[in-house]
């Protein structure tokens, strides 16, 4: 799978990229700002985007809106990744825009399940 990791915490993003690429054999790319994420999405066909809700230039929810629009109906799994719990006000808004919600620290077994490609029809 092609995975886009969006997080302004560069250490966290880089480590997650290593884990996803090395342990799970996926193609992963990091973006550290909302702008970088939107640019990267325009250049590569990603299957899944793991998006931190708190980014310096735009909220993660706005990135989700833009990526969904740019996907134009192509299958795309959007995963909110945040230190905010799902029932915090910030998390509640994300629920409507994302397919899944992962609270930091990430549960790796849950992430593994999300990174399984959909079965061919």
């Amino acid at each position, binding site marked *: 799978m092609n995975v886009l990791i969006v997080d302004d*915490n560069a*250490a*966290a993003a880089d*480590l*997650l990229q*290593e*884990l996803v690429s*090395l*342990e799970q054999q996926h193609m992963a790319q990091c973006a550290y700002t909302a702008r970088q994420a939107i640019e990267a999405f325009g250049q590569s066909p990603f299957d899944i985007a793991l998006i931190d*809700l*708190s980014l310096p230039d735009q*909220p993660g*929810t706005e990135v989700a809106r833009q990526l969904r629009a740019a996907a134009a109906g192509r299958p795309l799994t959007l995963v909110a990744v*945040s*230190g*905010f*719990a799902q029932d*915090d*006000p*910030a*998390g*509640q*808004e*994300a629920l*409507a825009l994302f397919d899944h919600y992962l*609270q*930091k*620290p*990430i549960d*790796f077994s849950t992430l593994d399940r999300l990174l399984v490609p959909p079965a061919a029809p």
Partner: protein
Amino acid sequence: MKASPSARSWIAAGVRHELFLRVLPALRHDMAAPVSVLRMGLLMLKRQVAAPGIDAAACAQRVALIDEQLGVLVDGIRSLRDWELAATGEGIGRAALVAQCTALLGAAFDLGGIAISVDPALEPADDAQAPRWPAAAALRYLTLGALCHLHDSVPRLGAIHIEPDGADALRLRAEPRAAEAPSQALVTHRAPRSLAIDAVSLQCLAEDLGHAIRVERTAVRFALASA
């Protein structure tokens, strides 16, 4: 029945509790970040030391990252003491106070479509020579209380501007949302908030903490020195 002095103190205690609950997600977020990095760093380090040929330089780099993130986590845990009114610290500068409080509420407000703008005169870089105000915890609650009061009470709120008022006070001013701006996010964010920080609650908090405050329809002004 008129509220007794004790009842007003209980109201103030309730407001402090509500404010702490509102910033708790941000505090948890700040501490979850280093824990995330620590866990992933350790996982990668385990892989590295289990490999047939150990790359000592890569392992050392990984250990340095873990050490750094552990420091961030320790600082986060220590900072929880900042919320205890009884804690005696070295006080806080006005700009640092504003920076801390806007960082704590900024993400949640932002997701609700409400911006917080800070006057350039309150840039933290200008704070080094500025006076430090004692009772930092009280000032933290008061600043958060003022922000949350405007957030909860001003209809069609678009932004809150924070500016200095003389040498020893802060003024927070609500600005309306632009007519064309979408308001759906605002509704989503504010709907679950049933316990609003109204003007009476904010007054009780300020009195209990010993600070003079003036609450207007779309602005709040409070003194940094206790009365």
